[in-house]
């Protein structure tokens, strides 16, 4: 492999990581935009998503990478696993909001944020007790199709991950920009009281936001499993921290910013891992974050003092 091939290969890897971080970052940014809350439960909702997707695939009789499916069975199986993971995670998100955060709405200070940290621990320990701490072989029924581009290899799974992530992001953008509920979400993010005066039911908006954000984390868990052939109880922390960094880098509360931030961080992680050393990836990511925040404190696409006229 020439160095150009290596770079291309790392760009391919970086875009896959970036797709994952973007989806996860969107969840942080959506909830922050509406509720001005960093939802630390998001880390482990993502992990639960990976586990639920794994159990769903196993329930179809898939074990590890032995069973390879093609055509409709492949699409059906993957589609079902995505759907189940997204619905279960969306449900968890709604539950967290409805049962634990809504009673705290209007409570000043960090109580809601601390609550989400607590929920994160609960989710972690429930999965730990139920499934154990070992690394699990995530079923992957994708046929081993790959294309050579120069010296680099592009696998079917990467293409699939890009397509799914792109479809989810386009879908989310359409929802937020064009639908009635999406417009209510934007209005609430910009001026909650004025939105309420227009007749927006803010409770429903907040609940929808938690559902969407957590469902994206579920999809992201499935993508993680397909990419690494692995699911483990502690995957939430590293991925979640990078995704959170991506959301801040892009400008927290800003939807395109989260997408951009995720891709940037994925690319940096892959390319710096190759050229400088894997151990340095975090140093470079967080170093960049600090630099960007010095120059643009609101992030790449964020605004300072967002909505007060």
């Amino acid at each position: 492999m020439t160095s150009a091939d290596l770079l291309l290969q790392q760009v391919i890897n970086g875009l896959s990581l970036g797709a994952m971080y973007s989806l996860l970052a969107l969840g942080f940014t959506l909830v922050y935009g509406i509720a001005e809350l960093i939802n630390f439960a998001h880390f482990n909702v993502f992990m639960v998503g990976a586990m639920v997707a794994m159990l769903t695939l196993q329930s179809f009789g898939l074990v590890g990478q032995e069973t390879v499916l093609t055509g409709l069975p492949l699409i059906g199986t993957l589609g079902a696993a995505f759907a189940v993971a997204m619905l279960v995670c969306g449900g968890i998100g709604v539950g967290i909001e409805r049962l634990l955060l809504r009673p705290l709405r209007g409570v000043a200070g960090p109580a809601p944020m601390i609550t989400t940290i607590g929920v994160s621990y609960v989710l972690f320990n429930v999965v730990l007790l139920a499934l154990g701490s070992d690394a699990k072989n995530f079923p992957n029924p994708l046929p081993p199709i790959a294309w050579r581009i120069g010296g680099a290899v592009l696998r079917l799974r990467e293409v699939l991950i890009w397509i799914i992530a792109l479809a989810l992001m386009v879908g989310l953008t359409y929802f937020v920009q064009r639908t009635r509920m999406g417009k209510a979400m934007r209005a609430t993010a910009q001026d909650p009281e004025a939105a309420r005066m227009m007749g927006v039911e803010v409770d429903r908006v907040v609940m929808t936001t938690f559902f969407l954000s957590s469902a994206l984390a579920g999809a992201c868990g499935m993508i993680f499993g397909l990419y690494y052939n692995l699911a483990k109880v502690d995957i939430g922390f590293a991925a979640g921290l990078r995704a959170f960094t991506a959301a801040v880098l892009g400008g927290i509360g800003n939807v395109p910013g989260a997408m951009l931030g995720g891709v940037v961080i994925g690319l940096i992680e892959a390319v710096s891992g190759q050229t400088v050393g894997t151990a340095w990836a975090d140093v470079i990511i967080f170093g960049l974050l600090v630099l960007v925040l010095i120059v643009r404190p609101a992030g790449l696409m964020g605004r300072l003092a967002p909505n007060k006229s």
Partner: protein
Amino acid sequence: MSPDPAPLLQFRGVNTHYGDLHVLKDVNYSIAPGEIVSLLGGNACGKSTTMKTIMGLVRPTTGTVLFEGKPIERLSTSARVARGIAPVLEARRLFPRMTVFENLEMGAYTRQRDARFDEDLERVYGLFPRVKERRAQLAGTLSGGEQQMVAIGRALMARPRLICMDEPSMGLSPLFVEQVFDIIQAINRQGTTIFMVEQNAAMALQVAHRAYVLQTGVVVLSGTAEELRRNEDIRQAYLGEMAVGTAT
């Protein structure tokens, strides 16, 4: 005005509290269909609390708020908007990063998107040609006067029976203040009742049919605009003061 029509909006013995702070004290208002009624008073006298009580952001501790003869004080804000009460908020409060058109859509949020939506949109564009020109622009990029037009248009999109305006002239140049009050009268002539909180008492008493004067949460005076304009206390307390402070 017919002599004694059934009121569209009525406050009966309304008291409100913020914690220990007693804001509205046994307040009674009665607004008949087709009227422009103005609420006058200095700072922190309970004018904004009145608006919030009508819209349901503040609940009365005792007393009743009636709309079309039915109590509404337990209804959600959304249900009140659906029944035909629309606000024009203090300082306009548009959604700055949504387009002018999307802001108008938000005004119609509680309604189904039917043929009448387009009808109402045309009506707003007819009243405010400038709003039509700017419909694709982000609301935050408009001038204060243009924003006030959008804010009024947004309220009209709810197809309201009653529009509650909180300080419609605030922050506008004198020329624009004139325009806004002309528009308020035009909307009123088309059949919408208007309840308006206003610091600019001189202007308010020119367009309003009647007015209430609120002082530290108590209605101290009420009457037709004509009567209040001639009232010596009002002249001293509000109109004289306004002559000095008109430019605000």
